[in-house]
């Protein structure tokens, strides 16, 4: 009789130790990663949100002042901000669409065996591995009307050199071309990975039924590709929303403000004017744009 409580105690201790092992230990292992994640992701996110409600010029030496929504009101009244939003949306819309079309077309075209197919496919991916700043600098020189490779071709064709980075509209086209060149292989990579796993049966059935190529693409390939398209577009849109270094080195937002997309607008306010509160509020608008895009596209994906 007297042994029973002892056993219960032992069992209870074992239970507690098991509970600790199962419930707490995993968090112990996870904690370094959680701490790092908190430090580099959560803290800046929360701090910049806090900052966006304050007026703080970092170089003035004055303490930050709580101004609640003043920064947001100021930016919504700012013509330059709306101009940057407009440019950002056009930049993302145009470049991601072109990249998707080229990536998908090339993936469909190369989805067969041919001589050195693996080498060709690997080489096509190269631009995606080039750093944006390097690509931007290379394009800046290639666009140069005097020494640039692109204008050398233009002149060989008998035309006058084109001052790509000097004209407001051309400069915008020039940054889109750079982005498309560098990032279409990313779309290709995802599309090709998806296409190469498609089952053959639906295609054989369609052929027997007498469907033409367009019908096969529209009714079989595209629906099968949709989940991959959504993922690829989400990743690319998020990436294009934070495009910065390549445009900074190519045009620095010029001529005028014709290529000052949101990331450059944020940078200018934060690191040229040291207006940290205001630029934090613009950053949050960029975060909201990214969230709206992602939620919309993810919701669409669940509909499939």
């Amino acid at each position: 009789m007297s042994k029973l409580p002892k056993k219960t105690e032992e069992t209870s201790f074992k239970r507690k130790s098991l509970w600790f092992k199962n419930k707490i230990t995993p968090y112990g292992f996870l904690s370094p990663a959680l701490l790092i994640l908190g430090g580099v992701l959560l803290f800046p996110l929360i701090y910049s949100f806090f900052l966006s409600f304050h007026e703080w010029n970092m170089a003035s030496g004055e303490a930050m002042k709580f101004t609640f929504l003043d920064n947001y009101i100021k930016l919504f009244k700012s013509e330059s901000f709306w101009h940057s939003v407009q440019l950002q949306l056009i930049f993302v819309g145009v470049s991601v669409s072109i990249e998707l079309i080229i990536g998908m077309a090339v993936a469909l075209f190369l989805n067969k065996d041919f001589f050195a197919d693996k080498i060709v496919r690997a080489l096509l991916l190269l631009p995606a591995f080039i750093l944006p700043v390097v690509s931007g600098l290379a394009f800046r020189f290639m666009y140069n009307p005097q020494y640039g490779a692109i204008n050398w071709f233009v002149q060989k064709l008998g035309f006058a050199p084109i001052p790509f980075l000097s004209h407001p509209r051309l400069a915008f086209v020039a940054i889109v071309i750079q982005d498309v060149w560098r990032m279409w292989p990313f779309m290709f990579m995802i599309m090709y990975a998806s296409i190469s796993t498609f089952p053959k049966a639906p295609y054989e059935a369609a052929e027997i039924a007498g469907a033409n190529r367009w019908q096969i693409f529209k009714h079989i390939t595209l629906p099968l590709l949709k989940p991959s398209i959504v993922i690829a577009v989400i990743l690319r849109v998020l990436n294009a929303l934070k495009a910065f270094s390549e445009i900074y080195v190519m045009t620095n937002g010029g001529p005028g403000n014709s290529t000052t997309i949101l990331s450059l607008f944020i940078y200018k306010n934060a690191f040229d004017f040291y207006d940290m509160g205001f630029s934090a509020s613009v950053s949050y608008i960029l975060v909201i744009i990214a969230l709206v895009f992602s939620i919309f596209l993810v919701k669409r994906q669940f509909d499939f």
Partner: protein
Amino acid sequence: MLKKKNIALTLVLFLFIGSFLIVNSSSIKANEKYEDTEIRVLVWRDAHSKAVKEKVHEFEEKTGIDVIIDDLPTQSLTQKMAMNLTSETGKYDIVAVDEPYVPKFASYFINYSEWPQPKVLADKVDLNVVPQGAVDAGSWQNNVKGLPINANVYMFTYRKDLINDTDLQNKFKEEYGYELQGPKDLDQLYEIGKFLYNEKDQFYGWAPFTVKSEGATVEFMWLLRSFGTKIMNDDLEVVLDVDKAVEALAYYNKLLEISPPSKLSMGHPETIQNMESGNLFSTLQWPAIIAGHENPENSVAAGKLAYSANPAGPGGAAAITGVWTLAIPEASKNKQAAAEFAYWWGSKDSGKELVKAGMSPMRKDLLEDPELQKRYPWYQALMENLSGDIAVHRPRFPEYPKVSDEISTYFSRVISGSMEAEAAMEEMKEKIENIVKEYKNE
């Protein structure tokens, strides 16, 4: 006789004691080397700072101070400086500040008058040896905030070999009715540039600075002052004369007609490329870059260039300054050693050595040295451009970066043809007035 002997003896005694004291005091200085002292220096990156990095071991040997130099491109330097100053880390013991940023960060620096006397080196640098324009550039609210170290000013640079060519001289006189010479005014600059411009041979009369940056702002300010107007006065009133600004822009468009094809997106790399490959007659250039133009290993224009005070416009001659000042942050923990380093950099003796390594000096005694002037022919023009009449400082105003951004944006809009000059100038003026108003309300 005895009296004379006594006087002689007294004199000898004084001489002896005096010599003993002098020798003794210098030996004290030599023995007062620093121990375990390290300073961190943040400077801009060009031929000037490269020369200092090359010769800094001499300072280290002399003083026992270890120097770590971080050199960065101007914009990155300013950002890094801002982060360190405002967070008062004291990481940097001495920083180089570009002229337009002196007002913005002035409160973080100790005044030059409060800099400590040197412990090892002979003397503190006397600011009288620095051209007044450079001292003004390093000052804010009647205080000199550091030691101006780079008497930097935009200088007119042109090909003298073409001006001296007899065939060209004859042809020019026939066409324009006056002697071919180094342009004295803006009309001559355009006419000579136009005369030498040859699109087929890719030879251009003028290299503009138009890529959206501080460089474009500086170019426009030079232009405005040459046409007799400016953005704002010392009382922070926006005083831009729109008519004069429009006239200046019309003239600039003429210069663009004789410029290289990349004329609307030109910055330093494009100008250097054109000048050093012999495709260019003239431009405005900074002294540190000129050293490269005169290097025969890289430049076909080496030895063919002349330098003069900037050609005068209807409003006179103007030259924008870009003086770098060495400043000691309040948060520095090694102010004494930091000051010692600045005195070494600014001294005449080390200056002579640094000049050989590519430094562009700020001392008048170096700039006026006949031997150095012979070797570095732009020194004279540099002195002229730094004189009170010609030197133009950018607005002394903590919110200057915002003003500069508006100026480069509207300048770019006009020259790229996306906006009419008058409308652009009116709009720019209004925006700058708003920036000033906002600043004053604060």
